[in-house]
């Protein structure tokens, strides 16, 4: 019955759908004034970082909280599991030893990993010029980390480095936002740095700065989540955090 109801609702939606032929008023404003006011060639970025900057801060916060939650949950489980393991004793110790990857995989990882990370950095540095931005670049960096963890299971990622980079970039993001209040029109206003030439790498005020912080934060957070899952599954001994 539920399905039938859903079908009726969706049929009505689909039947009454007409495509917008012109932009709405708000979109019109963004398209007209965006390049002049913000100086970003990518209007999506202009909207995400400045006009709706507070929402982006909220998104970053959500991601931070979820990463923290994963860390908290998995750490507690790990402690319990370790206790269990001590009770069970070390019969299945051999079951989870990792096979190291083949030479081809290792060499390819060493070749490709820097390029993937470089591409991620490129994506978030050029967020105001080309499609992409902090979240996308961060996700690409995290994919690089995933690649590393898959190909070289024994590799070790410093959690201290992750924690420091993550908190520093989150903090600087907010600081940049507050600088916007002090030196320009409002929170996360990007115009306290001069706009530069339209379409150059160093243009659009503080947008590259903000997106770099977002990119680093997202990338390291997702890497931390992956690393925690990996650590949890591979039953390694406690590493000091």
């Amino acid at each position, binding site marked *: 019955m539920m399905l039938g109801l859903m079908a009726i609702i969706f049929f009505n939606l689909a039947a009454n759908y007409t495509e917008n032929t012109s932009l709405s008023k708000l979109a019109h404003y963004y398209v007209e004034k965006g390049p002049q006011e913000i100086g970003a060639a990518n209007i999506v970025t202009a909207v995400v970082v400045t006009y709706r900057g507070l929402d982006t801060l909220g998104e970053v916060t959500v991601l931070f909280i979820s990463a923290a939650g994963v860390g908290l949950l998995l750490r507690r489980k790990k402690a319990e599991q370790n206790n269990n393991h001590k009770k069970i004793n070390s019969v299945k110790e051999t079951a989870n030893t990792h096979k190291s990857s083949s030479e081809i995989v290792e060499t390819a990882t060493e070749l490709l990993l820097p390029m993937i990370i470089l591409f991620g950095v490129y994506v978030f540095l050029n967020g105001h010029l080309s499609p992409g931005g902090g979240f996308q670049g961060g*996700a690409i960096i995290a*994919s690089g980390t995933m690649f590393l963890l898959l190909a070289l299971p024994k590799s070790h990622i410093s959690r201290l480095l992750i924690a420091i980079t993550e908190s520093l970039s989150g903090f600087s993001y907010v600081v940049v936002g507050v600088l916007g209040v002090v030196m320009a029109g409002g929170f996360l206003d990007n115009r306290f740095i001069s706009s530069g030439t339209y379409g150059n790498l160093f243009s659009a005020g503080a947008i590259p700065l903000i997106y770099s912080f977002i990119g680093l934060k997202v990338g390291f957070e997702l890497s931390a989540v992956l690393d925690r899952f990996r650590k949890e599954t591979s039953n390694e001994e406690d590493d000091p955090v």
Partner: protein
Amino acid sequence: MSIPVLTLLTIILCIGILVGGLLAVLLDSMLSAVISAGLASLFASVVYVVLAAPDVAMTEASIGSGLTTMIFLYAIRKTQNKNASSVEEK
């Protein structure tokens, strides 16, 4: 009457999304379900590109089909490990 190539492509991709989603729900094996969910979001990211939203497409491709699949796989392995150990205890 001829259908434009882009429309045809979009339709095929949308069918791909639907098939991927249905498989993700219907398949019994957890592993195949996770993979087909990843496949659905991969198709979705191509649809975003066709619909001129490259920003969203990048996010969908890397997070939806890459990281989420990976995290699900890790989670499956983790839960299965736990089951195995509890069986051993018995």
